[in-house]
């Protein structure tokens, strides 16, 4: 069944709907009970901070308002006397060797990390940590909807719509059959001979009618709010309230934690200093974290019968030198690059890529770019000997079928595939022997170089001009 047929009928409804919602959102004087449907939370306010760091801009100086200079002066003086320090809070997390991720369990940290830059994923939710809300709603403690439930409802409606459409089609066919049977009877009674012509023309007329009927059915397809699967339907007040909820008949314990990927955790701790990562109760420095994550990223239970904890020595200095093309490092370099440009970078295997790039964050817009990280052995070191050349070639090469697979997925999801080549430097790590195994993280990161290529399908039919 051509599923595109009913699609366009949906969009005008939807866009007018959005415009409507936008108009309602304009702050008016309160007191008008004009909210027939659930209000969207103010994401711009919830996610006003793009990073878990506070900034203190000076009040604006307005030339025709001389008092404004006083405000500026007060701010300047108070901030010199009592300088505010950001980050205000340093969140705490621990490394879990079983899941190879970093867990944040404090509910306030979880909220803060999600709201200020969309870090991590709820361990029991699809992305935003919403398990507690879902659970409360299930037990009838809460009237709000979570995004997961919203999707489920949408799917139900959709299935209903499809069943309905299929039924209408079946009926149409039945009707057509009956009509043809009647005609056949009539013609056999008439036996005038030229009955073929009226049958078809009549049939055509009938189909038109039936098609319009089916179309009408598709017009009445349940309308959808512009899709952000990540979007949640709740205001901040509820979120604050929920952490200390006691109004229910029994209290639900939050079973959920936030899990950060290694890239996120390293960025939060090394670049922003907003996260402390512990392993076995010991706080890890940036250098130790780098060694830990690099070792974890190459660790595979398929190859060794031990667990990661058994493989990693208990000392902070791990023996094996880090390979310059360590998967964690390559990915982190790309992660850091795009984060430092202001993109919200989220790991995404669901779209067959390493990262998705969001403008401002998943609550605001769909991701536009999908990033695939590729190593590049351009440095002369890698082509010095033939074995090295062979090995690099093996690591570098991807066939065209690989590219088309990845690109096709992105095309269907309306994203642009981006290949990011990371230039791999010659080996820089001597292992644990030299200088206590301490790593100069900044120096290491600066050895890598990234280059972006955006790909797109080109169809000759579209560009003829």
């Amino acid at each position, binding site marked *: 069944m051509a599923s595109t047929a009913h699609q366009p009928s949906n969009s005008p409804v939807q866009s007018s709907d959005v415009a409507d919602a936008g108009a309602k959102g304009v702050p008016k004087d309160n007191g008008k009970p004009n909210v027939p449907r659930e209000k969207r939370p*103010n994401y711009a306010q919830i996610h006003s901070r793009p990073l878990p760091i506070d900034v203190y801009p000076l009040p604006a100086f307005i030339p025709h308002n001389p008092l404004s200079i006083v405000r500026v002066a007060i701010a300047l003086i108070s901030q010199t006397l009592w300088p505010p320090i950001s980050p205000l809070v340093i969140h705490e997390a621990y490394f879990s060797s079983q899941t190879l991720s970093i867990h944040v369990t404090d509910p306030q940290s979880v909220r803060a990390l999600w709201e200020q830059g969309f870090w991590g994923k709820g361990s029991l939710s699809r992305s935003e940590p919403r398990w507690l809300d879902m659970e409360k709603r299930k037990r009838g403690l809460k009237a709000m909807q979570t995004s997961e439930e919203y999707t489920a409802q949408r799917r139900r409606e959709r299935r209903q719509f499809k069943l309905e459409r299929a039924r209408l089609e079946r009926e149409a066919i039945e009707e057509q059959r009956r009509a043809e049977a009647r005609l056949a009877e009539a013609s056999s009674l008439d036996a005038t001979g030229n009955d073929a012509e009226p049958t078809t023309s009549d049939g055509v007329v009938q189909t038109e009618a039936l098609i319009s009927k089916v179309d009408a059915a598709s017009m009445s397809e349940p309308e959808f709010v512009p899709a952000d699967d990540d979007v949640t339907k709740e205001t901040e007040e509820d979120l604050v309230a929920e952490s200390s909820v006691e109004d229910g008949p029994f209290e639900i314990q939050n079973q959920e934690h936030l899990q950060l990927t290694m890239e996120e955790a390293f960025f939060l701790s090394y670049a922003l200093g907003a996260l402390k990562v512990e392993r076995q109760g010991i706080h890890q420095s940036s250098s130790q974290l780098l060694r830990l994550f690099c070792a974890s990223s190459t660790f595979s239970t398929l190859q060794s019968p031990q667990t990661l904890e058994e493989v990693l020595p208990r000392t902070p200095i791990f023996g094996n030198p880090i390979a310059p093309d360590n998967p964690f490092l390559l990915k982190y370099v790309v992660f850091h690059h795009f984060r430092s440009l202001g993109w919200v970078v989220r790991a995404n295997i669901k779209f067959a890529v390493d990262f998705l790039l969001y403008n401002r964050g998943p609550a605001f817009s769909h991701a536009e770019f999908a990033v695939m990280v590729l190593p590049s052995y351009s440095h002369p070191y890698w082509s010095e000997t033939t074995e090295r050349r062979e090995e690099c070639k093996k690591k570098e090469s991807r066939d065209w079928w690989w590219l088309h697979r990845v690109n096709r997925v992105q095309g269907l999801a309306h994203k642009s595939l981006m290949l990011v080549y990371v230039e791999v430097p010659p080996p820089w790590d001597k292992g644990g022997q030299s200088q206590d195994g301490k790593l100069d993280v900044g120096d290491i990161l600066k050895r890598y170089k990234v280059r*972006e290529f955006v790909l797109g399908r080109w169809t000759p039919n579209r560009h003829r001009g």
Partner: protein
Amino acid sequence: MADEEEDIPRPVGANQEDIDLTDETQDFRFLDKLTVNASGAASLPKRGQKDFESHDTKLQSDTLEASRQAMHNVLSWTRVHTEKSRILGMYHPESNMAYVEKVKTKHFENMGKAKGGKEWLLPEEALFLIERGSMDCRWPVNKSNGENEEELTIEDGAPMSLQAAYAAFIGFEGGVGGKLTLEMFTVYSGLKRAGYFVFRAGCWDDDRGTLQPLAHHQDPNKAGGYLSRFFTEIWRRISTHMYPIPKANLQFGPLVKPGLYRSYADVYRLLQIIPTHDRTAPPKFHLESDPNNPFRIHYDVYKSGTGKFRKAHRGPPDFRVAVINARETSLPTADQLNDLLATTPYDPASPQDQMYKKLKHGSRNVILAVVDNGIPSYIRFSDSDFSDIKLYERNGRIPRGKGGGRGRGGGRGRGRGRGR
């Protein structure tokens, strides 16, 4: 079942660019309409739906029959080769080309090259015309049977079969890397049939193309005089002020030391430490020149719908196509891509374009035609400078409304077809 279907996003009306017509199932009845009102204003007929199962109604079988009949009508159309448009060509073994003495048809407006009173056709051009049924190509006759050379005309030559034409024209060309392969011919004829004007790129016979320098985009500044240049320079220095990051911060982190920050732009500037490819530097080749390098530009492709076209003065092409054999090459490495893109001209998006469009357009671009057993897939590679567009500065500027705060307007009618 419904869930599975739903998870496959489908094209939405707003984004026509991504819909590939060849992906649809065809209803050939539209051909009938084309032939019926071919004289009138040509509006493409709507394609119908396809039924996947038979539900023994007469209507369905009639529709199917009508479709078949339409296809049959089109195929049974008598195609006539008039004497006027018949092209007689002669194969020239020394150059592996063909020549035509009398130019009659419009084909020569966008192919062939006049030389010595004859119109010379490149192998792919000759093969294309032969395959199309437009040209009758002849083998040269053996000159040793005593007759005078002058008396021999093209008509005396033995007719060349299509099979012979394929054997003769493909793969026998001189030149290092510029040998015509079957893949190249597939791409050439495909693009020609799709309505493009296709020519060999200038670097066909060379090991690789020439470096294309950066455009002189400082020009507007110079035109503005010293004063404006002075102020732009000052503004540039103020706006892109880089804080030196203390070495200890770099070494052990955090890059953003606890302290007082006035704006997020300041914070982001501190974070920027990863080196990127410098696209403002003049391009240079990374690899040695190699005649066997598969990544080279083969064809210059021109849109056909844009006014008068003269093959002698055709200007810069609209697209540059490199033909790749999918079975013999793999995805290009960063060096190979660099070298390929260095031979394409600097072609940035217009500054007025939207951010996403700019990023997708890139500063240089090339189209790779990846051919697997005669099926080409075209992929556009563009060299995009992401560090050129600082998202944090843009987001800082744009005031956000209260109503849901869906960023840019373009994000709206896109509907649910997109996943996250």
